[in-house]
């Protein structure tokens, strides 16, 4: 008996583009996928952090692309630089919060531009430019905020609900090319997206989740599962990963 993964779990020989690869769940997914044999195309704005990610990956043909995914006019050009993909992991995102009464229009736009328009148009360009290999897989990051009612999250929650709304019809259209698309709706794990460094921010959530606070690797594991052939025949679906949260 060997001590390896099943062939369908392995990512050997696969090319995976990861947006938002320079930090948080994007970086964790890139590292885990690379450890499972994938060639990573890391996409992010911050050259320094992207380079740090590159250094942390096992040797390979990985490439880093510095790009702003909300420069929608430049997206077609960015996608032209991509090789044929076996998976596209859209991990770039923001969580910008404000109570409804004080919510500026600019904050609504920013949540929608980064969390919705950017992944939607990236997937669209990949489709238009034939960048998906047969049976490629698209992984989106929704959030439990798409399903719950937490004060202060109006703009963020609606952006994640919109992303799941995009996913289902897109699954039907992508299925014609045998391409799959799924999402992960995770609760809060310790990443820089929340702009919080102190433990007390995360501690308040630890108590809300029966299994405690999740780690970035938990969410990254779901992302590589969805990117791999282990999730064949799975499309248009959302994996809720929230430590068993309950609202009653």
């Amino acid at each position, binding site marked *: 008996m060997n*001590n390896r993964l099943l062939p369908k779990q392995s990512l050997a020989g696969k090319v995976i583009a990861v947006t938002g690869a320079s930090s948080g769940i994007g970086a964790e997914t890139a590292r*885990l996928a690379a450890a499972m044999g994938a060639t990573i195309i890391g996409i992010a704005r911050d050259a320094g952090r992207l380079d740090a990610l590159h250094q942390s990956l096992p040797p390979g043909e990985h490439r880093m692309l510095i790009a702003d995914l909300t420069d929608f006019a430049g997206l077609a050009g960015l996608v032209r630089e991509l090789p044929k993909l076996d998976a596209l992991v859209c991990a770039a995102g923001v969580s910008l919060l404000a109570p409804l009464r004080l919510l500026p229009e600019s904050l609504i736009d920013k949540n929608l531009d980064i969390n919705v328009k950017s992944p939607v148009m990236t997937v669209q360009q990949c489709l238009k430019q034939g960048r998906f290999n047969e049976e490629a897989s698209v992984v989106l990051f929704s959030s439990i905020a798409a399903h719950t009612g937490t004060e202060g999250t109006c703009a963020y929650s609606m952006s994640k609900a919109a992303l799941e709304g995009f996913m289902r019809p897109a*699954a039907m259209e992508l299925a014609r090319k045998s391409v799959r698309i799924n999402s992960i709706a995770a609760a809060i794990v310790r990443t820089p997206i929340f702009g919080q460094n102190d433990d007390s921010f995360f501690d308040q959530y630890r108590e809300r989740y029966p299994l405690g606070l*999740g780690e970035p690797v*938990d969410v990254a*594991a779901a992302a590589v599962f969805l990117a791999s052939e*282990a999730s064949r025949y*799975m*499309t248009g679906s959302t*994996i809720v990963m929230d430590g068993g949260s309950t609202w009653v």
Partner: protein
Amino acid sequence: MATPEQLFRLDGKTLLICGASSGLGRAIALDAARLGAQLIVVARREALLDSLLAELEGQGHRRLCLDLASEEGRALLVAEARNLDGMVYAAGSLGKLVPFHLLREDLLEEQYRANALLPLLVTRALLAAKAVRNGASLVYLVSAGARISPPASAAYSGSKAFLAAALRSVALDVVKKQIRINSVMYGYVLTEAMQQLAVSDEVKAMAPLGLPEPEAVTGAPLFLLSDSGRWMTRSSMTIDAGLTLRQKVGI
């Protein structure tokens, strides 16, 4: 960082597979053994269990030939199954498609019993006997039917929804022991039992990604059994080839 093997393999885990003799249960058992798990495989049909046991990779697997529907069967299970790190409950009944006005009480009861009561009774018996280790992962094969409720399947769809709803509550009752409970919602899968069911080709053709063989769709239960799923409980994964995305035209 945890290695991919630590996340996705099942080395050192003792897993109980109920309904292991055919279909999805059998396919999951074969892959779980390839990933290093020690298995206790349970089913009624002895010859099929023996042939599965002969095919399982690795050493030390056991088989229990018993009927989970009987109290003696469950007592035997609890006497033999110990120190479980996980379970896949794959036993169940597809019943038959019956228009609701023709659905007899005994058919309705039979489905509820096979698909909802038995998995709950088996789980309760194992928990009461302390046969389940802290941190274990229990995985139940439910059906996308629990959500889409196709025609003539009131007994079947209802029984699966019953199980899924009950399990979400059980998950909270056992979470202090870090025991995780999740379900997998399958669409149509080319199992023997499914092929005996008179599902029309038109319905089967509705899934945009086509109809999978059981071997192709073992990934989700394996994910939930392994440490990769350690932050999931009260949740489910849907593998239906896109079946439940579209609206059917006409009844």
